[in-house]
C-alpha cells in the first residue's frame, strides 16, 4: 500500500450529482406548489422555475467540469482513479437527467 488512501469523506461525492438532481426536483416542486397556491402570475412563476433549474444545471455542470479537469493524482492510486471516474459519470448522468426530466415540463401550462 504505497499510495495514500482516499479519505472516506470523499465518498460523499458519489452521491453529489444526483443529490443535486433531487434538490432541483424538490425545489421546483416546492416553488411551483407555493406559486400556484398563492396565485402568482404565470410569467414570473415560470421564470422563477427556469432560474431554479438553471442554477442547478450550472452547479452540476461546474462540478462536472472541475472534476473532468482535475486529476485524481498518483497519490490515491487505483482506487482514486476508479472513484474519480465513477463520480464524473454520476455527474454526467445527473446533468442529463436534470435536463430531460425537469426541463421540458416547464413549457407546460403552469397551474392547471
Amino acid at each position, binding site marked *: *500500500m504505497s*499510495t495514500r*488512501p*482516499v*479519505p*472516506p469523506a*470523499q*465518498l460523499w461525492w*458519489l*452521491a453529489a450529482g*444526483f*443529490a443535486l*438532481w*433531487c434538490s432541483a*426536483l424538490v425545489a*421546483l*416542486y*416546492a416553488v*411551483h*406548489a*407555493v406559486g*400556484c*397556491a*398563492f*396565485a402568482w402570475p404565470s410569467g414570473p412563476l415560470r421564470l422563477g422555475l427556469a432560474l431554479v433549474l438553471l442554477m442547478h444545471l450550472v452547479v452540476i455542470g461546474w462540478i462536472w467540469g472541475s472534476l473532468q479537469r482535475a486529476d485524481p493524482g498518483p497519490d490515491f492510486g*487505483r*482506487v482514486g482513479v*476508479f*472513484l474519480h*471516474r*465513477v463520480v464524473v*459519470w*454520476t455527474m454526467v*448522468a*445527473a446533468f442529463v*437527467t436534470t435536463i*430531460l*426530466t*425537469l426541463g*421540458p*415540463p*416547464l413549457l*407546460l*401550462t*403552469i*397551474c*392547471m
Partner: protein
Amino acid sequence: MNVSADRPARGSPALRLHRELAAIWATGPGLQRLAAVNHSVIGLRFIATAFVFFAIGGVLGMLTRVQLATPAAAFMTPETYNQVFTMHGSMMLFLFAIPMVEGIAVYLTPKLLGARDFAFPRLTAYGYWCYLFGGTILTGALLVGVAPDGGWFMYTPLSSNVYTPGVNADVWLLGVTFVEISALTLAVEIVVSVLKLRAPGMSLDRMPIFGWYMLTTGLMMVAAFPPLILGSILLETERAFHLPFFDPTRGGDPLLWQHLFWLFGHPDVYIIFLPMAGILSTIIPVFANRRLIGYRAIVVSIIALAFVSFGIWVHHMFTVGIPHLALAFFSAGSAIVAVPTAVQIFAWLATLAHGRPRWDVPMLYIFGFFFIFALGGLTGVMLAIVPFDWQAHDSYFVVAHLHYVVAGALAFPMLAALYYWLPLLSGRMAVHRLSVPAFWLIFVGFNLTFFMMHLVGLRGMPRRVFTYTGDDGWTSLNLLSSVGGFIMMIGFGVVVIDLLAQLRYGRRVRRDPWGATTLEWAMPLPPPPYNFASIPDIARGPDYPVNRELALSLARGEGYLGVARNGWQETLGVHMTSGAPEQLVVLSRPTFLPLYTALATAAAVLAMLFHLYPLTLAAVLATVGLFVLAGQSAGLARDYGPMPVGHGVSVPPHTEAAGAPPFWALIFTLVADGTLFTSLVFGTLYLWIAAPNWPPAEIFAPDVGLAVVVAASLIVAAAAARLGLRALAGGGMTRGSIGLAILGLLVAIAALLRLIGGVVPRPTEHALGATAAALLTYVAIHAGIGLCFLVSNLLRLGAGLISPRRSLDLRLTRLWLDYTLMTGVIALGFVLALPALVAMLGTRS
C-alpha cells in the same frame, strides 16, 4: 493474556485452530439457540421465516383467485375478502420481500466480503426478533378475524377512525412499524458492515459487485423507511389520540399519507430489486465463464437508480389532482428510471454474449427473470405516461404490472440464488430431476396468472373488487388467471419437494462446485460459524480467483487472524476506500438480550394496540433500559494498544480506533433520523400549503422565552459533552461535564413540555397544533434519548469501560447531542415561524 496473532507455528494442526474457533463462535444447543447472534444463523432464520410468510401470503393470494375465478362467487364474504387481499399484499411486501432481501444480505454479505460476521451481531438478532414478533402479530390478527382490511397501502381516510373503527388498521400500523424497526436496524448494519468489515486489500474497486448493490440498498433503506414510519406514527396518533394529521375537517389532508407512504413505497421496489440485481450480477459471470462486463457502469447505474427511484414517488398519485406541470416532472423521471436499469440488463446480456455460457437450473430462472422483468419494465414505462395512467389507474393492469415488476424481479432471481447457493447452505449439489419441471410450472403459471390481469385491467376491471357480475367480458380471463395461479402454486410446491430431496439425497461437494470467483466458496461447505479460519488478503479483484490452494491456505490459518485469541470473536475493520487493515473488531458473543429487548418492544406494540397506554410507556422504558444494559457489556475493559493480526500487521481494537463501526452506525442512524425529521417538516409545510380548513380559528403565539430556554439548554448540553470529551483526553474529570449535560437536557425537556402544553389550537382541534406539538415532541424525545446516552456514559465510566484511548462512548454522545441541538433549533425556529406562515395564508388561492 495476549496471544500472538501471527501465523501459527509451522506444523501446528489446522484442525486445532478450527476447534478453537468453533468453540468461540458456535451457538449453543437447546434454549441457547434463542441467544444466537451469528449472522449465518440469523440470516437463515430470516430466510426461513420469510418463506413461511411467503407461503401464508401465497395461500391468501390463492384465496383471492378462488373468489375471483367465477362471477358472483360466494366463497368469501366481502369483509373477509378485504382482510385477505390486504394481508396478501402486506405480507408479500413487508413480511416476505423486504425480510427475504435482508436475510440474503445478512447471510451472504460477510461471506462475499471476506468477513467473519456483521458489525453488530446483537442488533442483527434484535432485528430478526422484531421481524418475527411483528409478523406474528399481523398473522395472529388474521386468524382472529381482525386483520387489516384497508388495502396494503392503508390510504386515509379509509383507514381513519371514521371508516375503520376497529383495531384492523392499528394492527397494520403497529405491526408494520415494528417490522420496519427491524429493517432500519439491518439497513444501518448492512451499510456499516460493507464499508468497514471487508477482507484486507478489498478496496472499493475490488469489492464484489454484490457489495455495491448491498451498500446502495442499505443506504436506500436508511432514507426510505423513515417517511413510512413517520406516516404510521402520525396515523396511529390520529386514531388513538385524535390528532388530525389526515382529517380534512380539522386542517389535515389524506394526501399527506399518500406522499409519506410513496416516499417509502416507490424506492421500496428498487430496495427489493437491487439485491436481486446484485445476485444476477454475481451469478451470471459464473455461468458465462467470464468477468462481468461494465463493472464501473453498473456502479454508476446503481447510484443513479437509487436516487431517481426516490424522485418519482408521485407517479403513484397521478390521479389525485396535481397540476400537469408537476406531474410531468414525475412522468419524465418514471420513464428515465428505465435507463440505469437497462444499463445493468445490457451488461448482463453482454457478459453472456461474450462468454461461454453453460446451462443450469439457476440460469433457467435468470432466463425467466429477463422475460418477466422486461415485460414489467415496459408496462412501467406505459404507466409513467400520465394519460395512460389516468386510464389504467386502480385497474387490474396496475396489479399485473406490480406483480411483473416486484414478484418477477424478486421471485425468479431469488430462486436462481437458492439453487446457486444451495451447495453453500447444505454442502450438497442439486439433483435437477424436479428442478426443471418446477421452473416451467412457475414460469407458465406466473405468466398465465398475471398476463391475463393486464387484459382484464384494460377491459376495465378495477382492483380490490370483491366480485363481478359476469357480463363485463372479464369472466374467462379471470378464470384463466386463477388456473395460472394454481399452476404456479403447484410449481412452488415442487420446488419445496425438490429442495427437501436435495438436502437429503444431493451429491456432497466440498468447495466451489460452480467454479465461482467470490469468497464465499473459499470456505468449507456448509460454512462454519466463523466463516474463514483466517481472513484472506485480497491482491486482485473484483473477480477474486477462488481456488483450492487459497481455500486450504485460509483453512491452515495463513491469512489474517489465523489464531484464536482471548476467546474473542474477531474480525478485521478496514479503511473504507482502500481496504487497508485499520482495527481489530471484537464482536459480541451469544446473548439473550436481543430476544428480551424485542419482547419488551413487542409488549409496547401490543399494549398500544389494546390502548393500555401506561403499560405502553412502561414497555418502552423497559426497551430503552435493555438497550442501555446492552451497552454495559460492549467494548473492552482495558486498553490494549496495537495488536498483531497477522502478516506482520498490528492494529488497535475497535474500541481504541477513530472510525469504529459504532461511530459510523450512529452517523447513518442520524441520517435516517434526519430523513424522518425532514419528512415531518415537509408534512407541516404540505398541510400549510395544501390542506383545507386553514388557517385555524385561533393562531397561537409561542412563548419565545421558553423556546430560548430550550435552545440554551441544548447548547449547554452539547457544549458539556464536548468539554467532557476534552477532559477525558486530558485525564481530567469527565463526570462533572456529564452531570452538566444531564442538567441541560432535563431543563430542555421541562421547557419543551410546557411549550407543548401551551400549543394553540390544541393538537386535537387542528392540524396546525398537532404538527407544532409533533415537532416539539420530536425534540423532547431526542433530548430524552440523549439522557440515556449520558446515563450509559456514567455507568461505563464506573465500570472502567471508558478511558482516554477508549473514548468512543463520549464521541457518540457528543454526536447525538450535536444532532439534537441542530434539529432542536430548526424545530423551534419553525414553530416560532408558524404564526407568520399562517398569517400569509390569507392570500392563498
